[in-house]
């Protein structure tokens, strides 16, 4: 009796959670398949309408902005490149940084770590003018490199990798040393495969972080060719509700692809380490 009760309670909490996540998404999706005037009169819809292809085709391929140089598909492409670049670079840089902090014990490695950690208190928004200055001096305005580089050093990822490396027993390094692994080999043959799970998690985290950027791309791009997702939502598709819904649904696709792809790795990593 009490067992059934417990299961009922826990399952209803879970179901409630699932609904909380799914329902808004469904509403947006269902509404994106109706005509604009219908939505305008009737409000958001639960049922699928008949305008799916028209709406999605229009939103994906209509040239927007003032100079009509960019389409939504171009915007998604830009954002994907930016987020992918930020995620891969920051995972790579953080891993290397954490490796040197943990395994190359200098007198100042703790100090260095805290210096890196303190940069969490200085987010991009705070240092946006000097960052802009540097990127502009390097002639990287209106380029993917300019979008990616200033965001690709992550203190939080460094922190997570550092904590993880510290939990790896010292003997593993020693055994590897006796087996003839040098520092580089130890990194490639041990730390990288052992932190697969962590890499996947950090990659997802940093991808979403990069994908959601608004202020930085807004400031450092003057050419509409480099517009990104959040900017696009504001600048091109700010008016018409159905187009906005459609755009939102489409904008979900790149991060979902990344998550679906990496989740397999993530779960695999979880099971292998046991």
């Amino acid at each position: 009796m009490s067992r059934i009760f417990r299961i009922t309670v826990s399952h209803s909490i879970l179901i409630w959670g699932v609904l909380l996540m799914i329902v808004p998404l469904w509403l947006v999706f269902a509404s994106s398949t109706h005509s604009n005037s219908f939505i305008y009169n009737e409000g958001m819809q639960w049922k699928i309408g008949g305008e799916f292809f028209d709406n999605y085709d229009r939103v994906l391929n209509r040239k927007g902005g003032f100079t009509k140089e960019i389409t939504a598909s171009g915007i998604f492409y830009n954002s994907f490149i930016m987020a992918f670049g930020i995620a891969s670079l920051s995972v790579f840089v953080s891993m290397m940084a954490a490796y040197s902090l943990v395994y190359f014990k200098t007198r100042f490695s703790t100090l260095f770590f805290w210096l890196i950690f303190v940069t969490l208190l200085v987010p991009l928004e705070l240092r946006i003018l000097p960052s802009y200055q540097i990127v502009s001096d390097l002639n990287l305005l209106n380029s993917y490199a300019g979008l990616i580089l200033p965001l690709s050093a992550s203190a939080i990822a460094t922190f997570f990798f550092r904590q993880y490396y510290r939990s790896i027993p010292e003997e593993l390094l020693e055994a590897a040393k006796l087996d003839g692994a040098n520092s580089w080999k130890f990194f490639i043959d041990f730390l990288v495969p052992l932190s697969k799970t962590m890499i996947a998690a950090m990659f997802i985290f940093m991808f979403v972080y990069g994908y959601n950027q608004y202020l930085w791309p807004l400031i450092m791009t003057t050419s509409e060719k480099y517009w990104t997702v959040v900017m696009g939502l504001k600048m091109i598709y700010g008016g018409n509700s159905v187009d906005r819904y459609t755009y939102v649904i489409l904008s979900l696709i790149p991060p979902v692809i990344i998550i679906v792809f990496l989740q397999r790795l993530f779960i695999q990593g979880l099971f292998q380490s046991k």
Partner: protein
Amino acid sequence: MSYLELENVTKIYPNGTKAVNETSLSINEGELMVFVGPSGCGKSTLLRMIAGLEDITGGEIKLDNRVINKVDPSERDVAMVFQNYALYPHMNVYKNLAYGLKNKGESKEEIEKKVNQVAELLEIKEFLLRKPGQLSGGQRQRVAMGRAIVRNPKAFLFDEPLSNLDAKLRGQVRIEIKKLQKQMDVTSVFVTHDQVEAMTLGDRLAVINEGVIEQVGSPIEVYEKPATYFVAEFIGTPQMNFINGKIHSNKFISDGFEFSINKDVKDQEVIFGIRPENLKVSANGSIKIKVDLIEKLGADSIIYGYDKSNNYLCYRENGNTKIKANEEISLEIDDENYHLFDQETKKRLN
């Protein structure tokens, strides 16, 4: 013939702690030398210096006539078995064994041959494709051994490899290690704090205390003729009995009893030591104790009691003893097997 040689080896940590102090020792080819001592005595540090995992502050380590002080660990031609095995968790057993060979640049066929040989020797062939996480403690232990053997090193170094196994398995593995070591005839150093392991495994023991080797010798030598008070105290369970007193004209005199010694020792303050099994009950024994506690272990009975001057003494008798608690018994000293130590220097006198 000396094969692995330590000369005045010293280790001082940056914070000033002296872990190993001017230690010299020579280990013969094919010999199994056990470093035994309490935790923190520097035995592991010494082993790690041989392996190259710890810098050497002073002195010299030679392996097969080559000074290896500055040689990279992988080039020293030694293999180590770690306490927690340190198997590579993300590689299967085959890759664990092959990793060192691969780094040496050996060919695939060569590696496969060697790994298979070792796997056969250690009976781990059926686990070759499993990951360490899927193995039991004993199997992991074998893989760790295998990883050391497959490299065919000049010396094996064991850092308390049995301490993570349960008691029964530990006994089995101990025998296996001994057999393997003899079979392969590889010079080995085995670090342990467990004296049973030390006594059963070692061709010779080096008893280490506070960074200094107190005695080197065969297990029986160390047991029968401990060179210092520390060795006498450390080796043997139940512990040796110690009674403070003095020597006066070849007679040991304590508050509780007197005992004529059959060797010339000059008059001085001494510690008298006698092992529990070197006492026996006798009507006119010189030591009278009041029995406090009896432990019956089946094969032996251990009897504890206080003598007149409140020394807590221990006496071992075979089988199921008839002695009862609170009984007064007299114990006689075996006049071949007793030990005298200088109270100042703690060195053996007889």
